[in-house]
């Protein structure tokens, strides 16, 4: 008895939105229902079409004469979930999956275009810059499965519209991406639907962002629990001044006691519930059960009244809607934990939903299928940056990380250019995706009836979209990611057959990635197409292109990067010819191998000997220091006119490439990087070595990829962290501009 008396009754104010807790499935279930409803007409329609079409296609399927055109599977956020479920099945059954991406741009400045003068590490920096700055708007995924009964591939082209909407309110700077005007115009030319993309595009979180969001969540909830408990222990008193308040508080106190006593009676007597409420109260107070415990839900009180109620109960809180009776302190803790877990689950569901399109990437990664792309190094970099995390600073690290997620990648462009047999077949034709497709798969590309000899060679591909099937499909929508992925897959299938892979025989016994005929090309990607550098994803080794086709492109047979000087900021009237003239006057007619314009403000000068680079830089420096008559008459003066001519060696170019800013002109970029010196001297080989190392160290510091990490850790316990702000309203945002807080909270 005594023990019982000592036991206190705890009232807990439940924070947060009422619907969230009392009916946790409420809003979401409703939304789902809505989604189903809106989706149904579309589905019904497509089914009707399919019925109408299947009539004709089934009759023609044996003959295969006309090519049918039905749209490929477009996926937006409204049909994402069912489409993902379908895709899971298709990918699981697939022999390989072809992918393609449409981006908002390729190069953030003309001088960032890939050049013959790109060393492999610079190539990677350029790709990295592109993947970091631009967004992916469309993602084509096309699983291919060999159907041995039909002796044909079944392809399921999917076209995902994606848009990096910030579904979760995150602290930190507003996300931005870059658009290259010409790329956007290019997409428009092919009827890309920007409205669908922006309205309906599927959002996503990278793995990095997801774990960050979850980590912040747990922090938030731990904090909240802590504060709540501490609040319970030291109740905050609010002086009651107004008589009206005292009266109100007194009445509420009575009501609660009465209610509690009523509950106790109920328990002891097992009789009917006797809590008497007067008519006014019954509207505002309602007994419900919350987590198996009796609770009073409070409705229609003002915040001031709620504050008074809270004071009556000796606990601090606000916007509470429930008073829950608990039997003991343990029980109270248990309840708190339950509530907390529920909040956490809710939030986790939200994070899960925000993961969005990344589920597709995770699917491709977890299924470990062979991924097929066309010239896809940039695509892979985008996938890494958007769906995994910040890009590493070197190609080697990047490649080894990629290899873990996607152990088997094959690039059709590498395949077409490195195999001699295919080379002959391709003759001299271009290896762009559409021309390769037209050449290798004429029966699909042109929808024409193949001659008998070709039929032998052609791999059959049947396309299935929802219920529609065709063995002769051509949507014709070039430069739509889904269709491009389909073309890539077809080119790959055809190429395999040319390499002598018998799908019928091999696919039943072994996986395609392990086929010995593909071993020479698997996991090889073009680091840069323009200079033919290839990188091996498994080893991280770089090599120049091994065979034929591309070699004639290399006008600058052997580029000695040590022999290159970089000059920028010279008078704009100087052309390559003039610059060469200036320099050859000093260093001799054969000293300059090539002068290459990076853009109108910068040139590369390739000297015939490495020592010329340091001599040139030293000479420039001395000339600029002395302004006597000798320097005026010196042949180099023309180059130095205007006084803002800068020069350095190739390492500086790399340094400038690695900076995050995006100025259109190289000279402006160099200035933005913060280069204040006029000439970077290179004294000897040793000196340049140490210099290189220094630059390298510097760069790891200013590596932009590490920046988001830093920022995020700074913002962890941020006051106006909206996620937290939503869950606990009692934090007062105290900043100079309240509008800011408003904006974020309404996000």
């Amino acid at each position, binding site marked *: 008895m005594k023990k019982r008396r000592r036991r206190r009754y705890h009232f807990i104010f439940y924070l947060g939105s009422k619907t969230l807790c009392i009916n946790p499935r409420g809003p979401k279930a409703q939304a789902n229902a809505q989604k189903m409803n809106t989706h149904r007409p579309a589905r019904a329609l497509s089914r009707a079409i399919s019925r109408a079409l299947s009539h004709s296609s089934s009759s023609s399927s044996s003959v295969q004469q006309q090519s049918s055109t039905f749209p490929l599977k*477009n996926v937006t956020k409204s049909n994402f979930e069912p489409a993902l479920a379908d895709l899971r099945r298709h990918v699981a059954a697939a022999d390989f999956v072809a992918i393609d991406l449409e981006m908002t741009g390729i190069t953030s400045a003309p001088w960032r275009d890939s050049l013959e003068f790109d060393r492999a590490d610079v190539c990677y920096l350029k790709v990295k810059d592109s993947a970091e700055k631009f967004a992916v708007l469309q993602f084509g995924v096309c699983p291919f499965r060999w159907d041995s009964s039909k002796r044909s591939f079944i392809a399921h082209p999917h076209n995902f519209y994606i*848009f990096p909407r910030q579904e979760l309110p995150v602290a930190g700077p507003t996300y931005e991406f870059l658009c290259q005007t010409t790329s956007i115009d290019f997409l*428009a030319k092919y009827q890309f639907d920007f*409205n669908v993309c922006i309205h309906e595009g599927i959002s996503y979180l990278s793995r990095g962002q997801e774990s960050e969001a979850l980590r912040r969540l747990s922090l938030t909830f731990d904090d909240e629990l802590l504060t709540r408990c501490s609040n319970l222990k030291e109740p905050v008193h609010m002086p009651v001044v107004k008589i009206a308040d005292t009266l109100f508080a007194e009445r509420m106190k009575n009501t609660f006691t009465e209610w509690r006593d009523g509950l106790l009676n109920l328990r002891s007597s097992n009789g009917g519930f006797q809590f008497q409420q007067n008519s006014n109260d019954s509207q505002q107070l309602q007994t419900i059960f919350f987590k198996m415990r009796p609770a009073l839900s409070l409705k229609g009180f003002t915040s001031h009244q709620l504050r008074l109620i809270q004071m009556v109960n000796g606990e601090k809180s606000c916007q509470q809607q429930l008073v829950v009776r608990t039997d003991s302190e343990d029980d109270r803790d248990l309840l708190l934990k339950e509530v907390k877990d529920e909040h956490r689950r809710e939030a986790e569901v939200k994070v899960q939903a925000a993961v969005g399109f990344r589920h597709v990437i995770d699917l491709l990664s977890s299924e470990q299928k062979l991924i097929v792309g066309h010239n896809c190094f940039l695509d892979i970099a985008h996938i890494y940056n958007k769906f995994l995390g910040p890009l590493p600073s070197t190609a080697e690290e990047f490649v080894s990380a990629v290899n873990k997620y996607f152990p088997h990648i094959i690039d059709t462009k590498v395949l077409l250019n490195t195999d001699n047999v295919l080379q002959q077949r391709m003759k001299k034709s271009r290896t762009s995706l559409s021309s390769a497709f037209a050449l290798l798969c004429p029966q699909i590309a042109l929808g024409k009836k193949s001659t008998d000899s070709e039929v032998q060679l052609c791999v059959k591909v049947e396309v299935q979209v929802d219920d529609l099937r065709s063995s002769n499909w051509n949507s014709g929508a070039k430069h739509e990611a889904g269709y491009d992925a389909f073309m890539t897959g077809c080119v790959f299938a055809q190429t395999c057959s040319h390499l002598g892979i018998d799908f019928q025989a091999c696919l039943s016994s072994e996986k395609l990635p392990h086929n010995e005929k593909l071993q020479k090309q698997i996991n090889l990607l073009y680091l840069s197409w323009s200079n033919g550098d290839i990188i091996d994803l498994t080893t991280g080794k770089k090599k120049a292109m091994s065979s034929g086709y591309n070699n004639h492109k290399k006008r600058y047979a052997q580029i000695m990067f040590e022999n290159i000087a970089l000059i920028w900021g010279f008078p704009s009237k100087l052309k390559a010819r003039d610059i060469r003239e200036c320099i050859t006057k000093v260093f001799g007619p054969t000293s300059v191998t090539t002068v290459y314009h990076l853009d109108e403000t910068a040139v590369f000068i390739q000297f015939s000997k490495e020592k010329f680079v340091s001599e040139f830089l030293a000479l420039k420096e001395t000339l600029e220091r002395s302004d006597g008559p000798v320097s005026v008459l010196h042949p180099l003066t023309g180059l130095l006119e205007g006084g803002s001519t800068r020069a350095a060696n190739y390492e500086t170019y790399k340094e400038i490439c690695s900076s995050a800013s995006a100025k259109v002109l190289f000279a402006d970029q160099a200035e933005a990087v913060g280069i204040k010196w006029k000439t970077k001297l290179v004294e000897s080989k040793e000196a340049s070595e140490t210099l290189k190392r220094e630059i390298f160290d510097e760069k790891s510091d200013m590596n932009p990829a590490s920046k988001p990490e830093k920022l995020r850790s700074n913002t962890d316990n941020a006051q106006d962290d909206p996620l937290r702000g939503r869950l606990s309203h009692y934090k007062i945002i105290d900043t*100079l501009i*309240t509008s800011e807080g408003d904006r974020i909270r309404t996000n």
Partner: protein
Amino acid sequence: MASLPPFIRRRFLSTTTTTNVSKKWAVKEVTKSNFSESLEEFKDHLSSSDFVAVSLQKTGSYRAPWHRPRPFDTADTSYCKAKYAAERFQLLQFAACPFTLRASKLTPYPYNFVLFPRDELKMGMPTYSFSVQPSHLTSMAEEGFDFNACIYNGISYLSRAQESAAKARMGNPTTSSYVMSSSSTHTVADTVFVERIKSRVKHWKSACKNTKKDNALLSSLRKIVMGSEIYGTRPCMNLDVCSERQVQLALEMLKEFSDELVPLIIPAKGGGTQAVRVVLTSSTADKDLFERELQNLEEEQNKRVRGFREVIDLISASQKPVVSHNSLNDFTVIHSEFLSPLPTNVDEFMGSLHSVFPHILDVNHLMKNIGPLRKMTNIPAAISYLNNHYFAPIDMEILPQESEGNIHRHNVVKMCYLFAKLCSILKISDNAMVSNNALLAPAIKEYSNISNPCFDSPQESTNEDIRVWTKNMRKVSCDQLVFLWGFRSGMTAGMIKSLLCKSHAVFSEEFDVRLVDKSCAIVVFWRRGLSETFLDAMSSEEICESLMEIVSEGLRASSYETYKRACRLGLWEADLAESLDKALEDSDYLMEANSATNSKEIYWSSDSAINFDDL
């Protein structure tokens, strides 16, 4: 589009149908296809109107809280902020609305120009690339903005600076603008050159006239020998020149033949002149005809090159007062997109802008004259406030409703309406408006002040209304402010204040703390000189015990100068603390004279100022 589920398609179609409702003020949507006829119409409306209101829609606003103009910004720093935003984001929609306001009758003619920086000339102009904020695009989409219409059919443009660059690069021949100081003496080389080309021209001319009935072989041979070509239907010949001097000499020489020959100047690819082209006309009448042809060609080309900028040029040429809601943001964009790249400092910008738009009226600034509106940045809210509190009927057909498609396009009309109301309430006299020519009576001039991005101008106004709101503003000089950062994250201004109170003697006097963003706070010392004392104490060797503790925890402090430097250097990190740290690292600027600072005064408002930024 065809592949879309029908419900999506329906939604997009619906936006276009609802906006076709014909009302007097119905906004005219202008795209590439109807630009030239709309331009004529716009020209007429513009010339008959008193004002023109402009409203812009861009692809983003601010990246981080401190990047937007704040009450503690000077003209300089807020210009830096506006410049940073203007240079990155792309203008997609330009609403221009010429309107008349007579005896409280408002007649607007709203136009909505949809823009896209398409590279029509394949020269990487007007914009190589631009930034986009997905969150901003999403809210634009929610307001009914049609991105397809914009990207497919938006009107392109070139700025004035880009136009001249483009013309030089296109290398189209231009008619010569020959002005020769005849007194200049000819050197021997000059005389040789002139004689040589003169004989060539003579020879060529007579040959052209005599060979009407030549056979094909002969004429083609002649072409090769004499460098004769055909320009349009007329024969022509190119005279190669090596310098501008030779161009002038050639033109002088050609004056002798001015009755029949028309010289054209062929520019070289990166500026300068490549050659002088001489075109032979058959008679004086033919020569006139040819010159007219050339002129038309040039106009056509100009139209193609300038694109939408014609509208800007029209507005500028009309000299009508331009009404804008957020003039600093809008006009930095207008300047960088349509005039030339933004200059580095605000004074140059003002000078350059003033020469193009002499009268700019900022509605935001007008609103500041009505106390409670000072904080209001939302046009509809301001209108409803004025409707409830003032009797100032403005005669216009009902305001456009929110529900109608693209909300943004109606903003400009609402802005006209708000402007009209404000004019009526602030008694900006009617007679100033009615007389068409003397548009800007002194009363209105007072408000036409774009230099009010910050709070450094109101002292010049003597108007009764202004005192109302300056009352709760306290004047603070920049040197009374100290930026504080490096404190534990999650601290509130109150916590910082109480922390500081215990730390140093200077805080026994009155001071205030406000958070700028979560990383950085600003401290105002109400007594002058204390900020220096505090900064000295922070950096001195014998730092006092209490201060030492918080400094060792990482607290940093710096003067307003550091903030200005961060803005000027463009250190736009997400957290102000980060930017200030970087600004301190940049040693070059430590030496810099800070003479300008002392004169700068800003008004410290006791409540937050909210910037209208995106509607």
